[in-house]
Each structure stands twice: as structure tokens, then as C-alpha cells.
């Protein structure tokens, strides 16, 4: 957690829509220059939280501090941010130049200064010659870059991105997310992005705020969120995961079906029912040596081809009711001549298991 120097601080934010509580007790600090993603399924309150930070919605309770200033009750026009929406919200009847300069015209009188600033911004987003065009003449990805330039034009202290990539094609999306990230790092502007796409959040953010049903489940770096999910929801929502239901058998021992896995990080009373979450890559097919712990025998059920690697579903002995999913490389499958029905020996990396109370 960033300490005293935090740029944006949310304290006890709550939002009610009638009897429905959309957000409860949101606390968060964002450091200067940080890129934070709000990640969660639709309806988790992430967009509402962004709109509250922007002043487009009023929180029911709680306060917001930005740059040492209490902005809790300020209308949007008195806050300091630029915003980009999923729909781009470019003014369709204005040229790209007029769109980007829209906020500049209001505060600077010097036309030459405006012109050079717009030119600089258009260069920044990689569309230097598009000033005279109308938005409809640009592709979706280009329009979103213009929206970004417009939001950055007034050099705001905070950049808010509301699902900026969701309306774009898959290829453009992957390309643009790297560009936004590098632009953000170059400018050092504190940025909050809302997304429901976990891959997007993992690849772009300094820290991810995982939200579920109006509360923050976990705040952490992408690696933390992926490797050490704080709740079953986070484990399930971010990345693929195998769910094993079992009982605590002793210190570090979890019994699932007829297997007992050693080395898991769990303690507590013996016999307690638990759910253990395990990533597909934490079940390995090699190397396995004689005498290794946590080895299980299984039979391949289904192979889903995904390119260089495959998602393989196996039915493990002693875990009949729990199909497991593992990643195996295409080369490995070919070398071993594995097909549906082939036997397969697997080792469970039990120390990677995340164990929660059932």
C-alpha cells in the first residue's frame, strides 16, 4: 500500500440505489503515477465507483481526496481528470482537431498554442495527420486514440478509462492496450481503468482492484492477484482454475477424494471442510520422478486445441467426481502420442494450492 504520498484516496465510499447497495465501504489509495485497474464482473460496482471518482454520480457516503484536496462534493467541472468512455463519445460533427481542442479552447486564448498542443497530442497517440477528418472516417481503434488525446489535452492529474477497449476487435484491443500502457508510463499520469477483461487487467495494471458485489475482494499486483488470490471469488474470476473440495487432514495436508496432498499452506482444525484452488499450470506432467509426492494417475478425457498448447481435461483416479484441467504443450502431446483415453501421470504442486474454508 502506498503511504502518506497517495495521490487519490477513497474513504468509506458507499452507494445506494434505493434499497440496493451498489458499493459498500470502499477504501483505496492510489499513488502518483500508478496504473490501477478495477476488475470485476458486470454489476460489481466498478463503473459506479469510477463515476463517483469523476463526480458523475454522488456517493451516498464517504469521501474522496485527490492531490491533498477533498473533492467529495465537487461537481465534475471542479475536479481534475480526463475521461475516456467505452463508446468514445467523440463529437461526431466536429473534426478531430476540434474534438481534441474542445477543452483547450475554453481556457487558452492563444490559437497558435492550441494548434501546437493538438499537434503534439495527435503525434502522441500516433495519428499526426488526422486533424481535419471527422470521427466517422476513423476506425474504432483510431477513434479511441482521439478520445484519449482529448482527455489528455488539458494535462489532467488523473486519467479515467471506462472499459476503453471493450468495443474494439480482439487484435486492435491487444495492440491498443500496450500503447495506452506505454503512453501512460511516458506521461506518468495517474490512471484508473475499469475493465471486466482479466487478461487486460493483468497485462496493463500496476495494481488490480478486484471487485465483487460492491466490495473490494483484493488489491494487489497482477502477480499477487493471480498467484495468491485472497478469496475464492478472485481465484475463480482471474485466470483458469481447478476447484478441489476436501478436508484438512493435518498440518499442510489436504485430503481430496482418496488422495492426500502434502505441502499445502493450510492449518487449522483437522477435519475442516475446505476448497482448494489450483491453476492448470500447477498440475504438471513432467518432470516426475519415482517417489515424488502428490502424484496421481489419470486418463485423458478431452483435448481442446488452443495453438502451441492444449487445454487437457483428465479424469484422475480417486478424484472421479472432479475433472481436472491441465495445460500441456502440443509438442509434449505429440511426443507421448497422447489422445483421449490415454493414461497420464500428473504431479500436483500442492504448495501452490490456495486453500479456503468451504
Amino acid at each position, binding site marked *: 500500500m502506498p503511504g502518506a504520498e497517495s495521490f487519490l484516496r477513497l*474513504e*468509506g465510499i458507499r452507494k445506494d440505489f434505493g434499497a440496493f447497495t451498489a458499493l459498500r465501504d470502499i477504501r483505496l489509495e492510489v499513488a502518483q503515477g500508478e496504473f490501477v485497474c478495477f476488475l470485476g464482473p458486470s454489476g460489481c460496482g466498478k463503473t459506479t465507483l469510477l463515476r463517483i471518482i*469523476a*463526480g*458523475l454520480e*454522488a*456517493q*451516498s*457516503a*464517504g*469521501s474522496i481526496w485527490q492531490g491533498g484536496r*477533498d473533492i*467529495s*462534493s*465537487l*461537481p*465534475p*467541472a*471542479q*475536479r481534475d*481528470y*480526463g*475521461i475516456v*468512455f467505452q*463508446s*468514445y*463519445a467523440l*463529437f*461526431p*460533427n*466536429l473534426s478531430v482537431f476540434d474534438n481534441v481542442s*474542445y*477543452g483547450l479552447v*475554453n*481556457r487558452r486564448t492563444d490559437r497558435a498554442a492550441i494548434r501546437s498542443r493538438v499537434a503534439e497530442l495527435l503525434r502522441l497517440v500516433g495519428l499526426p495527420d488526422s486533424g481535419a*477528418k*471527422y*470521427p*466517422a*472516417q476513423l476506425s474504432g481503434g483510431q477513434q479511441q486514440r482521439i478520445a484519449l488525446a*482529448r*482527455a489528455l*489535452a*488539458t494535462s*489532467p492529474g488523473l486519467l479515467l478509462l471506462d472499459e476503453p477497449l471493450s468495443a474494439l476487435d480482439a487484435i486492435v484491443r491487444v495492440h491498443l492496450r500496450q500503447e495506452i500502457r506505454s503512453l501512460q508510463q511516458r506521461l506518468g499520469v495517474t490512471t484508473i481503468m475499469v475493465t471486466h477483461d482479466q487478461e487486460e487487467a493483468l497485462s496493463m495494471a500496476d495494481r488490480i482492484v478486484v471487485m465483487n458485489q460492491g466490495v473490494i475482494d483484493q488489491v494487489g499486483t497482477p502477480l499477487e492477484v493471480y498467484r495468491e488470490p485472497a478469496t475464492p471469488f478472485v481465484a475463480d474470476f482471474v485466470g483458469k482454475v481447478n476447484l478441489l473440495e476436501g478436508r484438512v487432514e493435518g498440518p499442510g495436508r489436504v485430503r481430496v477424494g482418496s488422495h492426500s496432498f502434502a505441502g499445502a499452506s493450510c492449518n487449522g482444525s483437522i477435519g475442516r471442510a475446505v476448497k482448494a484452488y489450483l491453476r492448470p499450470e500447477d498440475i504438471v506432467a513432467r518432470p516426475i520422478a519415482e517417489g515424488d509426492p502428490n502424484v496421481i494417475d489419470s486418463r485423458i478425457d478431452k483435448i481442446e486445441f488452443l495453438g502451441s498448447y492444449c487445454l487437457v481435461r483428465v479424469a484422475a483416479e480417486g478424484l472421479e467426481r472432479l475433472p481436472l484441467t491441465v495445460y500441456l504443450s502440443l509438442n509434449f502431446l505429440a511426443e507421448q502420442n497422447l489422445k483421449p483415453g490415454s493414461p497420464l501421470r500428473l504431479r500436483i504442486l500442492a504448495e501452490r494450492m490456495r486453500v479456503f474454508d468451504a
Partner: protein
Amino acid sequence: MSAVLAADRVRLRVHWTDRTAHLLLAGIAILLVAFLAGPLASVLAQSVEDSGGRFLGLDNFFAYFETPALAESLWNSVWVSLLVTAVVVPAAFVFAYAIARSCMPMKSAFRTIALTPLLAPSLLAAISFIYWFGNQGVLKDWMSALGIASIYGAPGIVLAEIFAVFPHALMILVTALSLADARLYEAADALGTSRLRKFFTITLPGAKYGIASAAMVSFTLVITDFGIPKVIGGNFNVLATDVFKLVIGQQDFQKGAVVAIFLLAPALLTFVVDRFVQTKQTSMLTARAVPYAPKPSAGFDAAMTGYCVLVTLFVFAVFGMALFASFVKFWPYDLSFSARHYVLGLVDNEVGSAFVNSLTLAFFTSLVGTAIVFAGAYLVEKTRGADWLRPVVQLLALIPMAVPGLVLGLGYIFFFNSPQNPLNFLYATMTLLVLCTIVHFYTTGHLTAVTALKALDAEFESVSASLKVPFWKTFWRVTLPICTPALVDISRYFFINAMTTISAVVFLYSPDTKVASIAILNLDEAGEPGAAAAMAILIAAASLVACIVYLGVGWLVERNTQAWRNTK
């Protein structure tokens, strides 16, 4: 921090630009309360009071039913309206089907001709039918052959109303039939479905809401229409003429108010059904639907063309007769050409000044009405805050559609003629006529504006706020230019309706502010049907010219503000 501990809900400080928007919205609300809610409330109040203002409960209603002549009018109104509806809806359906679902040639010409009755006051049809079938009519014998004693009365009303209501039903049904998903028909073809079965299993169910809506609208238009029964009704009394007689003739405001309430009921019902239909119809066609494109089919297309030719001939016959009669020297004895009816009307009977009044009314209604309606719709749809006021304005904006002009006009008398009303000075002025006409036709304009505004990205205002640009700047630079085609539509709608309306203004004019449509009634009453026909033709001509001007304006607007739309 104290803010965290505070139990109060957090309220955003209201920026002064938002405060300005709230004030403007409140202004619209006050306008609608003063010129819509107030008059309507006085109609309701009058219906349950005696002439001294004492509360009577429903006594006026009981008294109404005990007056045999009045109760008979209720029945007359109902059966005539039902009959017209029963004829118009199928007739308009076939026409709409020809336009939307056949490969008939010259579709837009047929459609335009079928819609022309909208340009004239409804009583033009009544006058024309008198020339066709009246006592000295060309085809008087046809009437007796059919066993109809006289065109004056129910037969004339039904015929003229069919003509006047047809285009309204047609517009609704064309829309309903255009909303077809081609994939349904392709699926039916793949299953080898017959044409007839497709019609009954896909087309008719798909259009059922449109048909219901067209039927309700037709019924309401007929039962609330005043001009046609006044001109061709003879001794056949209906509710609309009763209101006029009771209020203007007998000064019995209470009974007049009771009849007005009867007129309000079907209109209100139509409104509710129509709103329901709107939501159903839009949800029927999803974003993925493929628009239906009719395929040529020689026999079917020929039959459709034949039918549309018949309908257009009917339209031509009505307009043509009015036009012909207006230029005839002395019907039916001397059929030589003469402009004397125009001279008589315009000069001798001072319809000239009434015509100028009509143009003034139409001009200011279209100008001020468009500004008010669009401002109201914009403030409701696109500004922030004042959340309690928004639904109030939204509701008030929808009510006029459910209020027949006669009822509104009656409300204006009750409300503005009252000496206690500080706005009393407006009574019988052109200003009040303009405001009344704006309110009368408010809803359609409002809905057009709302549709145009809803098509704009909802986040324009958020983006502007984040860039610290006040809302009116975005309104001026973005919202208004994008919406100008809708503004032109709204303005034209106001203009045409202000030119042709009778029902509301019939209660409100003074000798100085008499409008042309009222002058036609007076000429007809004075036994000058030729001059009446001439004036009706003049109104239709003025509306036509206005339409052409609007077409030109629309084209210019399109070229100057919509260039960004076609820049691929």
C-alpha cells in the same frame, strides 16, 4: 475525517451552470402547468360543480344521462367512430401493405398523395362531399339509389372522416409493416410455407400492435373531431358539436365540461394503449434483425397498384371537387370559371385578415413551439440534477397527446377567462392562441426531439464537464447542429397543424384573432360553401407551400450541418 463520520448523504455541490439548467427546466415546468395542467384542472372542476362553484359530486353526470338528446349524442358519436374505424383500418392496412410489402411502382408518390389530406383542415372533406352528394350534388342520385335519404348526418360524417383519418392510420401501419425481420420469412420459406399462412402467422402477428394503435387513434380522432360534424352533420348530434353548443350557445359550462370528460376518456385510453404498443413494437425488432425486402410478384403487385390507384382517385376526387367548386361561378347553375369565391372570401368576408392571422399563428407556433419543445426535451434528457423535476416535465409533455383539442380549448376558456387568474389579460389574444396550439401539439414534437437526443452519445455531457466546458457550449456546438433535421421536422409539424387546427382555437378567438379555419366554418354557416371551399383550398395550398419550403430548408440543413454523416 469528519466527512466519513457524517451520517448525512453526500450531496454534490451544484455548479452554477447546472443551476442555470435547473432554472430553465423549472421554467418549462411552470409553462406546462400554467397552460396545460391548469386548464385541464378547471375542466375537471367545472364538471363536478354547479354554476355557482359549489361541489356537486357526480350530479352533473347523472343530469347528463337524464337529458335524452345528449345521451343520444353519446351513442351517435360512438357508433359513427366505430364504423369509421372499421372501414379505415383495413383500408389503410392494405395501402400500407402495398407500400411496405410489394414491389408496386411509384410507392413514394402513392404515399405522398395518400398523406395530403393532412395538409387541409378536416372540414375540407365535408365541404367536398356536400358538392358530390349534397342536395345539389353531382352524384345525388347515387345516394337515393343506396337508400340514403341525405348526405347531411351520419353518412356524410362517416365519409368525410374516412378521408380525414385515413392518412393518420396509414402512417402508423406503414411503420408497423416496415418493421419486419426478413429472417422470419426466410425461415418460413425454407419450411415451404404458403403465402397465406405466412401472412397469418408472421405478418399479422407482427403488425398487431400497429393495428391496435391505428384503430385507437382512428376512433379518437373521429370522436373528438369538430369540423366535419359541424359542416356536414345536419341534425345529427355528436359529442363534439354538443360541447360547442352547450358552451358557446347555452353558456352551460358544467354540462359542457361533462361532455368534455367523455371526449377525454377515449383519448386517454388511446394514449395508454399507444404507449404500451410503442414499448412492445420497439422490443420486437432486435439490432440483429435483417430488414425485409419484398420480391416482385406480377399479379400481386398489379393488384396492389390497382388498389392504390383507387384510393388516390378517391383523394383526387375530394380535393378536385373542392378545387373545382371554389372556382365555379354559381354552383350548380353556372359552372363557368370565376375567382369570385376567393374575392368574396378574402375581401368581402375579411377572411384575408383571418388568413394572415392563420399564417401569424403558424409562424409563431412553429418558431416558439420548436424552441420550447426542444429546450424542454434537451433539459429533461441531457442535464444533471433536479431529479424530482424531471419526471414532472416528462409527464406534462406527454399529456397533450391524450387531450382532444376541444377539451383543451374549453379548459382555456374556464381557466383564462376567470377574472381571478392573473393571466386573464391573455384571453382572446394571439399570444394565447399560439401557446394553446403549442401545448395542443406538444407531445409529438417532444417525442421527436427526445428520439433525436437519445440517438446522441449519453456521455457527451460527461465529457464536456470533465473538460470544464459549460453545457450550453456543447449544446450549441454539438447537440443543436446534430439535431437540426429533427428541429426542421418539429417546426413543420407545428406549422401545418397550426394552419389546419380548429378544435382548440374555436373557443379562443376574438374578432381580431380569428383564424382561417374558423372563417371557413363561418362562411359555411353563412351559406357560402363556395367561398368556404376556396378558403379550405387556400389553407391546403399554404400548407403545401410550407412543406416545400421546409423541404428546401431541410436540404440546406442537411448539406450544412450533416456533412459528417456521409464521409466514408
